[in-house]
């Protein structure tokens, strides 16, 4: 029998304090939340991080400008290509390298395929967290097709390491275009199936609508980006507001919702899958001919100064901040990870909600723990 307050696990006010994670299926990694509960109502959520912190920023201080890019594949492993792209852009900014049109197109194609694969996994995991097992198998079936395309061209399925300063590592595989086209045809039918299976489901909507609300002002103040911010009506897509790698030449719309709840964030991501498909369709038949990498020196030295590049990953705004002292290695590197800022809003959006809804909120924030821990 428990008798003291410490044994039962309550604080002075009689609120129950429970630990969710670090080993909990719905945290998708090792996230540790200390939740203060009054009955079933959440009073406070305090994240404790660092279970897989590898100090990639410190590690990068001893890696040169060709090497450091590849450590970022291990951060947000679902957007690894886009992370690599962000790093390559920062180095190119420092050296003033002009990236060939072909390399830009290849990077954009790969980035959109990555975004699709990431959103598929998010959709699968979210539905599973809310009790629907079947969507997981549906999404993984299509995700496998993307992983195979990646494997063929990049040699890896998740940690692609495909971007390099000046372009990409090697040219596209001869099968690439045909495979991507057959994937598009297949996935177009499947995404309608996704909507039929989950989006219109009454139980699913009841779990999402009005849950995890964050207002536009609060989302800005908490530094939210990506679909989390766009669900609250903030135009924040870096592909639109600060275009890179030729996104300004492409036709696509930023998906915005204004409700600010879990369902709004869900709808934004579902629409983004269609947007990514449209971008791939625009580019796949018109990949420019030419070099896939600009000529660069064997040893790269960034001039003394500061460089910052921003890209839109599947989770939001990813920033690479390089401070160079003119040496072969960076003096300081800071990665602005989207998940870190989005997670900080979790406490705010969950206060007053029921503990059972916390899983839906975490699901729609689309947290990837290595991205937060770095």
């Amino acid at each position, binding site marked *: 029998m428990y008798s003291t307050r410490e044994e039962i696990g309550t604080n002075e006010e009689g609120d129950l304090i429970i630990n969710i994670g670090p080993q909990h299926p719905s945290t998708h990694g090792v996230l540790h939340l200390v939740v203060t509960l009054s009955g079933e109502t959440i009073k406070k959520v305090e994240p404790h991080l*660092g279970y897989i912190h590898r*100090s990639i920023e410190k590690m990068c201080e001893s890696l040169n400008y060709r090497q450091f890019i590849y450590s970022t594949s291990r951060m947000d492993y679902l957007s690894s290509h886009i992370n690599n792209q962000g790093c390559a852009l920062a180095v190119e*900014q420092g050296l003033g390298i002009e990236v060939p049109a072909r390399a830009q197109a290849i990077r954009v194609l790969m980035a959109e395929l990555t975004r699709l694969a990431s959103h598929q996994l998010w959709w699968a995991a979210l539905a599973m967290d809310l009790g629907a097992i079947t969507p997981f198998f549906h999404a993984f079936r299509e995700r496998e097709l993307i992983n195979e395309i990646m494997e063929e061209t990049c040699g890896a399925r998740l940690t692609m390491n495909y971007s390099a300063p000046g372009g990409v590592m090697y040219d596209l595989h001869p099968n690439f275009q045909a495979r991507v086209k057959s994937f598009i045809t297949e996935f177009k039918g499947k995404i309608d199936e996704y909507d039929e299976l989950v989006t219109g489901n009454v139980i699913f909507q009841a779990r999402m609508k009005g849950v995890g609300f964050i207002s536009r002002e609060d989302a*800005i103040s908490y*530094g939210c980006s990506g679909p989390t911010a766009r669900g609250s009506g903030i135009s924040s897509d870096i592909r639109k507001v600060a275009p890179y790698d030729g996104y300004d030449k492409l036709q696509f719309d930023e998906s915005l919702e204004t409700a600010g709840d879990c369902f709004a964030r869900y709808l934004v991501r579902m629409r983004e899958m269609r947007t990514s498909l449209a971008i791939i369709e625009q580019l796949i038949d018109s990949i420019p001919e030419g070099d896939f990498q600009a000529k660069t020196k064997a040893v790269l030295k960034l001039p003394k100064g*500061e460089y910052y590049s921003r890209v839109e990953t599947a989770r939001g705004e990813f920033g690479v901040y390089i401070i160079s002292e003119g040496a072969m290695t960076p003096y300081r590197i800071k990665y*602005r990870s989207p998940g870190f800022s989005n997670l*900080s809003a979790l406490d*705010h959006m969950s206060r007053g909600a029921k503990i059972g809804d916390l899983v839906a909120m975490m699901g729609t924030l689309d947290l990837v723990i290595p991205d937060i821990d770095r």
Partner: protein
Amino acid sequence: MNKEELKTKLAELLPALPADDTSTWLSLPIDASELLSVMPLLRKELDLDFMFCVTGVDWKTHFSVVYHLTSTKDRSTVLVVKAKVADRENPSIATVCDIWRTAEFHELEAYDFFGIVFTGHPGLRRLFLPEDWKGWPMRKDYSDPVNMITL
């Protein structure tokens, strides 16, 4: 607002503090003691409502905290505020998390790795490292002969 317009606007707003335009974005070097007089003004007058990055930097003789600010109303306006924390022994700077809530987490990160104390922060704690961790790992003079490999 582009870089030139922002520079003119800043010169009107803060005539005593010269801006630096050697990088892609305009930056404003200030001293840590001036932070609380500068930041609310930038938030209010220039509408810089979105803080997207906070970085601690160890310059060996001193620290600096770099704030990247932009506006959600006009995304072309970007300002980088660099606050110098001169005291290396007891580094401290005021918190700005009552202006931008996102700073709360970012400041915890800078505290955890650099030992920069953010005065007025609602819950300064080790965010990544265990509570009993000794030292500040991202500082340039940090050494851990057991776990660190130097190349």
